[in-house]
């Protein structure tokens, strides 16, 4: 997997004097040719401040677009700026920016740093915005350091330990890649990569052998059809980036249950401020009340809803139907039931839960956490019986809670976090949003190459093949497989070539 992704390899030795002379004479082109790279430089996951770094000639332009100001901040001074998405002008965050014009920077190139709030939503928003700018791409691992080396900015002491660091980083990436690759998504990318390789191999065979051997133009028609199918699939896939959206907008957690179960109290408890009015009167909440909170590093949008009951009150009826509607859009449901209201038997609890969930379906597709509130009102000994009952049958993960005393909140938070982690990946094990941004970027570039393939194929077959090579390289950056021999193997497997 490595030789491909690591082709532009990190470099640590300064060239020999003679080589350096030769280099300066004939090898180095204008410095402006280099890509500008960006990456999250602080650790992944939940943290107070995240630092995103760029390095390369387009750093200044990127800073201008992100801050929306033509004027660059004074060099090496910390400045507060609004950071926005240049494509939508939507504000992503307010943060500190630092501008390091080359050569007085870590890498020796123009660099910038954005210090933003550490939530994954903000970070992935900024990274995706950077990825859409021309000339910018996510850095390969160790690439900042590599550039620093090449520009003579790193001494021996700084190199010490770097190998281990990169090793740890790539290990984490590898594990993450493996995790993702084991899934359906991985199999999909693998299949695309294989199909593209085959199409490319057939085209290469046509270029290298058709004049001498029995290769018909039919080979090209087949390759063409394969590319077209692939193009449509990638396009469809890119339009369906639900998981990334979830992180940016926050996970929708809907609190639902019968009236007077303590839903609004739970909302206030989780928000740590009085968002909703709380009263002992059933049916206090009549509309949907929202609150954005951070749970375990994940942005969560909590919605408190009207208690579900049959009512004659027109306003409350509307509230209940809004609650039902909101339930259908939920990513996670917190079903709140008053703990003392029913017989501690699995079937009875299930019955009560069924009344909350849409269609009364316990196996509904949206994950659910069952919260048995008002635990403080339970008699001693009753809780064990209740908890025991909850573990039987087909009930979702359950916790006993008292909004009044705060008892059980830790258990609820850990259940919720586990649920969020399952949905979004563990931010501490390598940021999923970062991977997501990278995948999206490579898939978009892959698609662009496939598009250009069509415009070149009648003009110049070599250019068309080059676009397929580029497309394959972008896919290879996701699947980690780029190999020239593979193409030759396919050629010799599929065709009888040579004389």
């Amino acid at each position: 997997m490595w030789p491909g992704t690591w082709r532009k390899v990190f470099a640590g030795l300064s060239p020999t004097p003679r080589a350096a002379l030769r280099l300066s004479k004939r090898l180095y082109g204008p410095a402006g040719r280099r890509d500008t790279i960006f990456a999250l430089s602080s650790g992944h996951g939940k943290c107070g401040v995240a630092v995103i770094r760029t390095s390369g000639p387009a750093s200044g332009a990127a800073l201008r677009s992100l801050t929306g100001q033509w004027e660059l901040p004074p060099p090496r001074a910390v400045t507060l700026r609004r950071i926005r998405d240049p494509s939508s002008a939507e504000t992503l965050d307010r943060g500190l920016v630092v501008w390091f014009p080359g050569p007085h920077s870590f890498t020796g190139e123009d660099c910038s740093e954005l210090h933003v709030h550490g939530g994954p939503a903000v970070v992935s928003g900024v990274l995706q915005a950077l990825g859409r700018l021309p000339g910018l791409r996510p850095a390969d691992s160790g690439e900042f350091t590599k550039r620093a080396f090449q520009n003579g900015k790193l001494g021996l002491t700084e190199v010490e330990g770097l190998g281990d660091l990169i090793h740890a980083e790539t290990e984490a990436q590898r594990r993450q890649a493996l995790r993702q690759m084991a899934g359906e998504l991985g199999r999909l990318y693998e299949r695309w990569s294989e199909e593209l390789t085959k199409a490319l191999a057939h085209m290469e065979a046509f270029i290298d052998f058709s004049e001498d051997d029995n290769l018909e133009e039919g080979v090209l028609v087949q390759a063409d059809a394969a590319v077209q199918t692939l193009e449509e699939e990638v396009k469809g896939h890119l339009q369906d980036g639900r998981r990334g959206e979830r992180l940016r907008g926050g996970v929708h957690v809907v609190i639902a249950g019968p009236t007077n179960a303590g839903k609004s109290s739970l909302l206030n408890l989780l928000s740590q401020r009085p968002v909703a009015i709380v009263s002992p009167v059933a049916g206090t909440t009549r509309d949907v009340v929202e609150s954005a909170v951070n749970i375990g590093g994940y942005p969560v949008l909590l919605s408190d809803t009207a208690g579900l009951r049959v009512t004659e009150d027109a306003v409350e009826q509307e509230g209940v139907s809004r609650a039902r509607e909101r339930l259908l859009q939920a990513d996670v449901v917190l079903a709140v039931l008053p703990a003392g209201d029913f017989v501690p038997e699995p079937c009875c609890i299930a019955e009560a839960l069924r009344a909350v969930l849409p269609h009364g379906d316990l196996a509904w597709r949206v994950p659910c956490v069952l919260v048995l509130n008002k635990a403080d009102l339970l008699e001693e000994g009753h809780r064990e019986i209740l908890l025991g009952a909850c573990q039987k049958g087909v009930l979702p993960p359950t916790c006993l809670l008292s909004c009044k005393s705060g008892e059980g909140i830790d258990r609820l938070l850990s259940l919720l976090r586990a649920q969020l982690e399952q949905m979004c990946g563990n931010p501490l094990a390598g940021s999923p949003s970062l991977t997501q941004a990278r995948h999206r970027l490579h898939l978009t570039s892959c698609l662009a190459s496939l598009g250009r393939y069509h415009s070149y194929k009648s003009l110049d077959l070599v250019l068309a093949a080059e676009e397929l090579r580029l497309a394959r390289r972008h896919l290879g950056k996701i699947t980690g497989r780029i190999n020239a021999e593979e193409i030759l193997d396919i050629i010799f497997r599929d065709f009888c070539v040579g004389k």
Partner: protein
Amino acid sequence: MFLFRRRRALPPLPLTWRRRAGGGGPGPRWDVLVIGGGHAGTEAAAAAARSGARTLLLTHKADTIGQMSCNPSFGGIGKGHLVREVDALDGLCARICDQSGIHYKVLNRRKGSAVWGLRAQIDRKLYKENMQKEILNTPLLTVHEASVEDLLLTEPEPEHPGKCQVSGVILGDGSRVHAGSVILTTGTFLRGMVLIGLEMHPAGRLGDQPSIGLAQTLEKLGFVVGRLKTGTPPRLAKDSIDFSIMERHKADNPPVPFSFLSEAVWIKPEDQLLCYLTHSNAKVKQIIYDNLHLNNHVQETTRGPRYCPSLESKVLRFPNGIHQLWLEPEGLDSNVIYPQGMSMTLPPELQEQVIACIRGLEKAKMVQPGYGVQYDFLDPRQLSASLESRLVQRLFFAGQINGTTGYEEAAAQGVVAGINASLRVRGKPPFIISRTEGYIGVLIDDLTTQGTNEPYRMFTSRVEFRMSLRPDNADSRLTLRGFEEAGCVSQERYEQTSRMKAALEEGIAVLKSLQFSGTKWSKLIPEACIATSRSSPASALDILRHSQVTMEHLARAVPEPLRKFAEWRELAERLKIEAMYEWHVNIQQAEIEEVRRDEALQLPEDLDYFTINASLSQEVREKLNSSRPQTIGAVSRIPGITPAAIINLLRFVKTNRQRTEHIRHSRVGGSLSEGNTLEKNKWQNASLSCAS
């Protein structure tokens, strides 16, 4: 003893040496000694001589110099690129082809000029004559007919890796020849074995002697050797073939020359010969299936080429296909036809049966049966990018002995080995062609870092930077470097290339600066479909990218300043190609620079990967040891090397550099360590036992 001497003889005087040779005294010293007069040997000897080395070419039979031992053709897709690059370094084969071809054809005409394949059928006799004439007339180059039995070895130079140093050779008659560098280009002669049916006999080509003494020496020195196989088809008598029922294939008119120096090829376009196409059939398949037990070559497990397979293996692997058989003339006045695609190792009488059931060959007479060759090759990972071996200093290898197949691949290595053998003697830095600079670079980098397990052939799909490495621009990529760094390029060629390069640069600049709106362009050149909707103006270079637009169109539309560029036909064609690829070449440029940066980071040649104190896995150590990469760029291309391993390697090298330099210094001072003394004894013994 001497067959040829160059006309303007320069010292040293070989006659003196001949008298002394038998006595065992030190003979005169040549700069470069080339063993073998095939395609690699001739190019190596000529390149060494061109770059100023007094060169001796040793061959079994001087009459076989320039012999095309297999197919009567040169070039092809990918291979044509190599020929162009050899020419750009002032090599011989392109010019000789332009004087000896009888059917010139550019392949891939419809597929983009980056993959055009210059190819020609060559008159064997003419090629040999012209090559021998060229070799004879090369100043500083002498040819001598002798067999080489062994290498003369001495103590190694401490500042280079290697357990010993070659200082010359011992000939079949026991005499010694001394030289600064030695290049081995012995092709398939190392333990060569010819196979026909169940018969086997040792030989390189049919009728030649294999080199056994040398093979033993190389083995004793510790060179890792592998075995490969190849084959050649039977030859047919032209007058016994019924061409009237076959598909005719005409040559190009006008023919495109291989060499940048040739205005045109020697033959009149209308005098070119035809090639013919026929096919295999079910009867052929049956004979092959029925007689597999009589076919040793096909049964054996030695790796053969996947792309130049015998008819038998084609039939076995793709039993349902109908296989093409090209009938190619071997010369203007030759009665021999070479049936390309019919390489066979069946017993001769069965080969005749196969031939007789092919359409048009029913009455064909077989003048020589096809046969298979199995031979030793040297694992090329034991060579550095200059083609010098790491085991024995100043010993270079080029051609088929390194596991390649094809005249062009051999010639390309020959030029590089010749130049470097000469530079080595003069103590100059090696001349390395990078993967980013030429197909030659890809060929040598693939061989020396990845090795090969089948005869290696060039394909365009092996080349990452195919957009930039085109046949049309081989001169601007290599000629100037060859002149400045290697001194292997004539003044005349240097000036011609400089002129062309300057004109190209000027032309591109002018084309870029000439900008009009789409509407204006479509009025100026109505025959091309130029989009008028574009808001930004388009440059003349953008317009030239349209498939229907040529420089002539542009010059007609805007005579000033474009006329002068269009009038120079060659320049106009090259400008068109530059325009086609400009966008992609620019994109690739960033990547090329990245590769070059990595290649500028050199690793010490004498690292012992098994003992160094760096955090590397055993697997990585083994890979590094067998490939012995010279640069970080090469390390990154070895499959299975992790980024962390690369950094740990770099860290080690950087911390140890000072220490290493200190050790070298003390070695130069004369204190040989015990290990060195032992090694010295070992090679001395090896040398003695071979010489006796």
